[in-house]
């Protein structure tokens, strides 16, 4: 993997983190009046997987959409304006945090119904196949989504028709506050299920390492691009904050602090920056410079978002139909 890619990955995880922290900072002002499912702790998967894609490849995200949106080149101002329910938001305020989209860079949509985007992504891959393009469709989803019929039904169909689609499962072992241990029997691994359905499938416990994610997903994207069909990747990761909202939920006795301690040592930002500094791929100055850029970029975007006009309420009747 060349240094350019590594540097880009580091910048990408750092930027996603910076945006999430900025949202946390401002959320209390009650100007972002929509639920936010933050991805602090899970940035590496979005960053690593999206870095493999071309601009004209498609992604489909979930309620936890910020990571993929930013990693695939979604516009920051449009994102923050969207969270603020303003005109100029990427959906002009109609979607909010759970429905981010930026088709210009292939972010087709984000969907708030668990698993809903999985077949839809496969459908876009079908259209690519029919149209004879060499695009690839990728969809992100959580461990919870794999419990919905959609998941299995779609993998089966994708395998039958060798669709150019890559399924990326972010396994944070939680669905809202219900742990995976309640939702899957002991000893079952999602990757094995995907494999049994005829989809090339791989698992890594290192979902917080963007380099690992990049490497593994590269193979899947290539496979898809070359007409060799779908692949599935399961990455372990950890949700640092509450399911929805800006707070840490460990204090409320719902989760042991142990998990958090373990995963803190695998912070997608810290571990990668340490590593790349040690490898001399990046300098401390470069990192600081990026941080400064983020601060500036975020200040401007936040200002833009807060000052963007509110939608005219009567436009709520527009665009129900074509």
């Amino acid at each position: 993997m060349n240094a350019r890619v590594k540097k880009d990955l580091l910048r990408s995880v750092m930027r996603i983190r910076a945006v999430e922290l900025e949202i946390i900072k401002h959320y209390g002002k009650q100007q972002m009046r929509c639920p936010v499912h933050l991805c602090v702790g899970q940035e590496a998967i979005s960053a690593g997987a999206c870095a493999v894609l071309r601009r004209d490849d498609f992604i489909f995200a979930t309620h936890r959409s910020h990571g993929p949106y930013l990693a695939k080149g979604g516009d920051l101002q449009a994102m923050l304006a969207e969270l603020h329910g303003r005109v100029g938001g990427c959906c002009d305020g109609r979607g909010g945090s759970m429905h981010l989209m930026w088709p210009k860079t292939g972010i087709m949509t984000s969907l708030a119904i668990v698993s809903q985007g999985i077949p839809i992504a496969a459908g876009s891959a079908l259209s690519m196949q029919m149209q004879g393009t060499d695009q690839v469709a990728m969809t992100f989803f959580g461990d919870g989504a794999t419990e919905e019929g959609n998941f299995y039904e779609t993998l089966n169909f994708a395998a039958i028709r060798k669709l150019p689609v890559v399924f990326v499962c972010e396994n944070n072992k939680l669905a809202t506050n219900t742990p995976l241990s309640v939702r899957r029997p002991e000893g079952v691994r999602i990757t094995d299920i995907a494999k049994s359905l005829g989809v090339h499938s791989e698992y890594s416990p290192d979902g917080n390492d963007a380099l690992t994610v990049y490497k593994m997903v590269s193979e899947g994207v290539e496979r898809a691009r070359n007409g060799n069909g779908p692949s599935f990747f399961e990455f372990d990761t950890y949700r640092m904050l509450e399911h929805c909202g800006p707070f840490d939920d460990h204090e409320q006795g719902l989760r042991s602090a142990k998990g958090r301690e373990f995963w803190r040592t695998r912070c997608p930002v810290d571990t990668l920056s340490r590593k790349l500094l040690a490898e001399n791929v990046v300098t401390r100055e470069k990192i600081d410079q990026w941080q400064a850029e983020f601060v500036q970029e975020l200040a401007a975007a936040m200002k833009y978002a807060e000052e963007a006009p509110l939608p005219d309420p009567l436009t709520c009747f527009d665009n129900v139909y074509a």
Partner: protein
Amino acid sequence: MARECKFSEAINEALAVKLEADRSVFVMGLGAQDRNAVFGTLDGLAETFGTNRVIDTPVSENAMTGVCIGAAVHGMRPVMVHQRMDFILMAMDQVVNAAAKWRYMSNGTQCVPLTIRLVVGRGWGQGPQHAQALHSWFSHIPGLRVVAPFSPADAKGLLIASIEDDNPVVFIEHRWLHNTYGPVPEGAVAEPLGRATIVREGKDVTIVSSSYMTLEALRSAEKLASQGVDVEIVDLRTLRPLDMETILSSVRKCGRLVVADMGWPQYGLGSEIIALCARNALDSLKTAPSLVSMADCPVPTAAAFTNVCYGQARDIAQVVARQLNKTLDVETLFEDPAGLPNDIPDARFSGPF
């Protein structure tokens, strides 16, 4: 030029015409390559257009609907088909939570030009899980269009229009219409969505109906005419959006309203039409409006129940007469000399079901 065609042939022509003209159109459904060809409507299409454009599927309605949505968002115009409307209940999330909301959420920058063909089953013991008519459900949902043609010509023209429409369209076919005949224009002639049509002009009572019930309404009109009653029949064709103009002006003219619906009576099309008229033409209503509908129970399998279960020409005539304070011997009037059983559309019917 118009020739006589079967309704199922009209559907088949509409699909063939669109598959031929537009590379973005494809057909998907369980049994799409099956010899029964979804009651003949897909006859020859897989052979002509190939199995990459006429796609048979696993038994996975929900994901298959999602697949079609994904393809539609990326420029395709899929036509899904389900052999029974009942099966789409597996996929309501995709239809209502995804397809119907998509354009709106994107504020008009994306759309879902998807057509979903749903067949309403009836007769020969279809029973509780294979004979539901849930058109009113789809019509409740902003973001969906709902089409339910009666005539073969409309089946063709409206299906073409549905495929060309940039919105998700639920296209409803009653199983008992597939074998009916009517003149059907050649070529790729679309019939605009959203317009009702007066299939019979009259002055005494307005009957509002759609799909198969328009056939029952026409049968009842014929008998009523023999008794000096002159009904007007509004065939809705599109259930969402409703053609308020046509409905209201007919009701304003006749002053009396009967709705004939193939669905259940509560919270359905019948109530919608009656409410529409009560809200917009109250002063024109000389008598309380009436509803002929499916009986308010699941559809039992046994043939013996059909007479009570399904609203028919006889029932329509009965309520029309009642509104006009006329006594009508419906039993004699609607006596069927052929004695055709009530669970088949015509004597030749022998499936497939």
